[in-house]
């Protein structure tokens, strides 16, 4: 099913199907390309940013967007390790921890930048933008900054749109959050450009306002990320890669659990451990049930999807409270 030899072809003890295997290889390659590109952006923006507040915030955002790709590559190393009696659930939670770490980094820097730009605006700081001497011509530095922002704004948008489908295939929330941030990066660049043009026409406040808008969007990304990461870490019900709704597999598992004739009623508890789901199925049998039947049901549920790596079927006389026994509405 999966080509041998590739180190990243498995998540813990779970072998990846061909599609996921290829997606993982492409995602890894994209992340390295992205890191190289972002490093070039960080250098370019640092060289030209001068005293523009919006450029400073855009630079910090470029620096911060290095965190998710690095965290993604680092977490791939740890989730490959198999589970053991000491680590009975494997190392998949590395994804959740990575998700939380990058979200907290976003939120912290965003909040600092809101404060920094806001105080600049309150103090009515007038940002000076001087000139460069290029090929014997004196050029306003604002034009150079705008060129730099066009360069840093274009690449992430392309990378983001390439990463999104891979994140969905791999059910990787770190990759998704990263792709989402990348895809929205043109807004940062556009805001910074408007801020600089604003300074150009003599609106000293335009730069700080642009910086505030960018910083506020970083804070928003951070808050959303923290909320979603915490839900997974606190064993919330598994949701789709974009955290938009309950994962459709939950309903599929419930249907499968109700399949056999010997099942009178069933309920499921599915949590996202990072890529892979941990599934507990409670079944109320119509009469005495054989262990082999329980095991066959667990095996059938595991085969529904590669993500269902750890399925436990428990026979009970009565379904426990607050466990999903009806499909999610949305």
């Amino acid at each position: 099913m999966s080509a041998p030899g590739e180190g990243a072809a498995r998540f813990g003890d779970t072998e990846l199907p061909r599609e996921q295997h290829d997606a993982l290889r492409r995602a890894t390659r994209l992340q390295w390309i992205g890191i190289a590109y972002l490093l070039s952006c960080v250098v370019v923006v640092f060289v030209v940013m001068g005293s523009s507040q919006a450029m400073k915030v855009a630079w910090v955002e470029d620096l911060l967007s290095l965190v998710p790709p690095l965290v993604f590559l680092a977490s791939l190393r740890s989730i490959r390790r198999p589970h053991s009696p000491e680590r009975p659930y494997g190392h998949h939670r590395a994804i959740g921890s990575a998700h939380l770490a990058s979200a907290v980094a976003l939120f912290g820097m965003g909040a600092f930048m809101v404060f920094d730009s806001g105080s600049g605006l309150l103090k009515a700081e007038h940002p000076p933008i001087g000139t460069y001497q290029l090929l014997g011509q004196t050029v306003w530095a604002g034009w150079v900054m705008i060129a730099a922002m066009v360069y840093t704004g274009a690449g992430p948008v392309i990378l983001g749109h390439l990463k999104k489908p891979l994140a969905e295939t791999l059910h990787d929330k770190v990759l998704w959050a990263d792709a989402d941030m990348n895809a929205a990066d043109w807004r940062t660049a556009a805001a910074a450009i408007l801020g600089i043009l604003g300074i150009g026409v003599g609106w000293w406040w335009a730069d700080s306002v642009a910086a505030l808008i960018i910083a506020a969007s970083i804070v928003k990304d951070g808050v959303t990320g923290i909320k979603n990461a915490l839900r997974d870490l606190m064993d919330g019900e598994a949701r789709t890669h974009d955290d938009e709704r309950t994962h459709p597999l939950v309903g599929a598992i419930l249907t499968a659990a109700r399949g056999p004739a010997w099942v009178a009623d069933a309920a499921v508890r599915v949590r996202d451990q990072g890529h892979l789901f941990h599934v507990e199925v409670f079944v109320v049998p119509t009469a005495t049930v054989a262990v082999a039947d329980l095991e066959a049901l667990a095996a059938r549920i595991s085969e529904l999807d590669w993500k269902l790596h750890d399925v436990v079927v428990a026979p009970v006389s009565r379904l426990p409270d607050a466990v999903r026994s009806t499909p999610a509405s949305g």
Partner: protein
Amino acid sequence: MALAVAGAVVLGGCAAIPADPDGTLDRVRTQGVLRAGASPGADRIEVAGADVSGPEAAVVQDFAASLGAHVAWSVGGEEELVAAMERGELDLIAGGLTDASPWSDRVALTRPYITSASPDGERKHVLAVPMGENALLFALESWLDGRAP
């Protein structure tokens, strides 16, 4: 805001970018007076009574002449001059300032326009204009670039 900025850029044309929020450059051109602060420093500028001289004083006078203006000097210590500039009372400061000046977050420094040797290494000399008066800064730096070294 996007449309407003784009509109302003189109209407203004490239010649109007960068502009001064407080219109300093226009005022110097129309009134014919460049209000400059002088503080003695680094053998670049000397002050004797109300008389300001030295190579940096000459640079300022030539720049003012290029705008069709004459220089009205105010003499004082650097801190006094910086405070006056923040109150909008000065258009330029010449005080043997270098690119290492601690005033860089209160006034806008030009790129270094000349270097000189000193006991503690090379000095890169700059002039100062009010924060954010980018048309004036652009005019001054362009003029300094175009001037024979």
